């Protein structure tokens, strides 16, 4: 089965051709046009700007996905498009394009959830053996807009069991980076700053809270952490000279990253144990964070040695269309198609059973 995937939920315009045979996936092409540089000057995605850029890029991106894959659009078996959650004005571009293509070419159309795409991103670019997943699985999906723990009892069987009470993890990175004058996007900015710290010894003994770490559920809270960074940084700026401040900022970046990672990993492991998970899945933009990957890896090895951890390839951590096409395959298998006229974008689409 040849699937064309389309993704425009936020600030990446993406198209991909995925070949699926007996539940194994080959990403034949995967084209992503990122707008991150354009949005950097605003410190975040501006919907109107994003939509305009999506319109300019969507057709050339689909064309290059087909070209790179050496596939003619007539030979595509079905079209999968991300219909939410995301920014309404961005989602619309992908959804309307997919609907039009499906109508004109008489191709079956599949609506895919963005979070669902991140769950299956762990299969993209991997060999057949690495694409094996055993259920139940616990998935941590973390990005600029989402921080969720999802229980997967089977393919397409999802239950949301934990989420953020306030800010998403990626949003916390963005806002903390802004407070610390580290630029946008905040994830890589803070991670790079943390890496600059030579030795892990702390000169300034910076401590940040771990919100909800011991709460009896699988939820997160990052808003208070952001406030704590604000006050810590303000105090440091008042009391330190320029040279000291440079070092203190690195220590603060390390501590902030540790705090976020600790909360994410601890809740994921707790959920995995409570649900006797055989697989732990990590996905979403924040899954590119090295500290998060390493920490989750060692927690799984230590606490659930028989479980398998699946993480996406680095190039599949951000938004892409290969993951949308792969998720689309599972819907196509169950003949879960939608009539083009009935498909609408849903910015608040929650992934439920």
């Amino acid at each position: 089965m040849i699937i064309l995937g389309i993704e425009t939920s936020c600030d990446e315009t993406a198209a991909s051709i995925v070949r699926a045979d007996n539940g194994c996936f080959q990403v034949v092409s995967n084209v992503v046009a990122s707008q991150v540089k354009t949005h950097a000057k605003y410190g975040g995605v501006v919907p109107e700007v994003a939509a305009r850029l999506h319109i300019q890029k969507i057709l050339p991106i689909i064309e290059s996905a087909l070209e790179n894959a050496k596939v003619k659009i007539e030979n595509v078996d079905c079209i999968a498009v991300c219909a939410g959650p995301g920014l309404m004005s961005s989602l619309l571009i992908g959804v309307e394009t997919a609907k039009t293509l499906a109508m004109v070419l008489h191709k079956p159309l599949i609506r895919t959830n963005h979070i669902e795409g991140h769950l299956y991103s762990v299969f993209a670019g991997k060999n057949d053996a690495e694409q094996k997943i055993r259920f139940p699985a616990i998935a941590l999906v973390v990005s600029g807009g989402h921080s969720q723990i999802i229980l997967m009892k089977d393919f397409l069987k999802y239950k949301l069991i934990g989420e953020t009470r306030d800010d998403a993890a990626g949003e916390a990175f963005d806002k903390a980076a802004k407070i610390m004058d580290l630029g946008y996007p905040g994830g890589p900015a803070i991670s790079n700053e943390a890496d600059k710290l030579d030795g892990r010894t702390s000169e300034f003994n910076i401590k940040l809270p771990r919100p909800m770490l011991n709460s009896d559920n699988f939820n997160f809270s990052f808003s208070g952490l952001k406030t704590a960074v604000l006050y810590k940084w303000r105090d440091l700026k008042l009391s330190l000279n320029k040279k000291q401040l440079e070092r203190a900022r690195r220590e603060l970046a390390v501590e902030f990253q540790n705090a976020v990672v600790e909360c994410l990993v601890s809740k994921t492991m707790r959920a995995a144990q409570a649900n006797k998970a055989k697989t732990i899945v990590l996905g979403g933009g924040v899954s590119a964070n090295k500290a998060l990957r390493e920490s989750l890896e060692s927690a799984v090895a230590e606490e659930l040695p028989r479980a398998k951890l699946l993480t996406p390839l680095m190039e599949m951590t951000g938004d892409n269309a290969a993951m949308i096409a792969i998720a689309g395959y599972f819907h196509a298998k169950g003949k879960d198609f939608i009539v083009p006229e009935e498909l609408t974008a849903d910015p608040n689409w929650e992934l439920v059973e």
Partner: protein
Amino acid sequence: MKIITKSEKGTIMQGKKFAARLKGGEVILLVGDLGAGKTTFVKGVAVGFDLRKNITSPTFVIMKIYKISKHLKIKNLIHIDTYRGLDINDLENIGALEYFGRDDCVCFVEWGAGLEDYLRKGKIRMKKIKFNDLDENTREIIIT
């Protein structure tokens, strides 16, 4: 009106009280720095409307709409965030302006100071709430 709260819980309580005074059709502009308590206040408003849903930051999706079932007149709580420097045109593009001034809606706009002129010209009932962080837990909330 000026209120001092000493904790997150206190800010939520004030949000709850504030909700009881709303009649429908108001646009409330929330002004204050990162971490000053804007979203926390809206959490309290949701409690006031007996909305059993968790209010999360709208920064990423710009606008969230929550259905209210336990109020005679107000049926929707609209939570908007213009943190990224969105202006009135952006809000029109995402359809947010359609909710302004509607009797069955109350709209809370974080970082909304820039909308004052627009609302005044449109004669839309408006309230402004300023959040000042006095120290890590203490907040001064000024409602005008």
